[in-house]
């Protein structure tokens, strides 16, 4: 089910959106030199108190009312545990939350990155007013996408027009692909 990293990342992004974030920064570092894939999601949502943050990654912790267990963070933590990684979460009530997962790139259980463009597109679509930034880095290159810049470019046309969403997805995937090609 959780076959690629994108699947994990979208869970974290959706948590941020559910927490009412108007600003999200997704950072992905994909380094062969350091043998690491580092993913972090930082938001300005409602945050958690210390106790909730501590328990957040246990599978039975959820503030949702429709279902008794929450899985998003627990899955990511599990992935970190099985790929020689580190899972960190820091949060402050009323300020925001940062979730960070660092895993060993060459580890046999480390999944593929997956469709990053698609999950960025989904996040923007979930909240068209969202100020969403992607920062992708490898050893040599970096690719940055900012929804606010695109919004300026669009000048009055909505980001969530299907044509625009498709463009966003392809543009991001192309940027990442380019960065990877130029890295060798």
């Amino acid at each position, binding site marked *: *089910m959780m076959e690629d990293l994108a*699947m994990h990342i*979208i*869970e974290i992004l*959706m948590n941020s959106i*559910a927490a009412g974030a108007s600003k999200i920064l997704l950072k992905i570092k994909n380094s062969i030199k350091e043998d690491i894939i580092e993913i972090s999601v930082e938001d300005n949502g409602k945050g958690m108190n210390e106790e909730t943050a501590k328990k957040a990654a246990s599978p039975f912790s959820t503030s*949702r009312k*429709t*279902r008794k267990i*929450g*899985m*998003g963070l627990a899955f990511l933590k599990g992935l970190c545990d099985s790929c020689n990684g580190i899972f960190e979460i820091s949060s402050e009530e009323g300020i925001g939350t940062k979730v960070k997962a660092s895993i060993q790139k060459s580890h046999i259980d480390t999944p593929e990155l997956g469709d990053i463009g*698609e999950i960025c*597109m*989904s996040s923007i*679509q*979930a909240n068209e007013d969202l100020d969403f930034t992607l920062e992708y880095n490898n050893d040599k290159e970096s690719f940055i996408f900012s929804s606010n810049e*695109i919004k300026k*470019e*669009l*000048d*009055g*046309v*909505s980001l*969530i*027009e*299907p*044509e*625009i*969403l*498709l*463009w966003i997805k*392809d*543009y991001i995937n*192309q940027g990442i692909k380019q960065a990877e090609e130029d890295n060798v």
Partner: protein
Amino acid sequence: MKSLEDLKKLREQALKKVEMREGGKDYRVVVGMATCGIAAGARPVLNKLVEETANNNYNCTITQTGCIGMCVYEPIVEVFDKNEGHTTYVHVDPDKAIKILEEHIGKGNIVEEYTVEAARKNEGK
């Protein structure tokens, strides 16, 4: 290659469409994108809806919602019309998504067999 130039063109096209379509779009298509939906396959459904709507110029917006509270029926797609008439489609996959757009959004016909009512009736028998 997707460039910012393309984006400008898309913008022009979008503006033209808005002019032609006074009073906003006729339908709102909502996809459940909580963990339950995503795990059940809502991502490819959302993707297909966006793609097909862009390519066929369907008269709808595509939006998302969190957990609808019927996890066993995910992926769920809800269609709202302008009068807030409301249809819930369940166990949607990309092929069903195409059909829902074609029939419901394109022609105004509800695809009865994919609705939650049909699913419940099936369970009952």
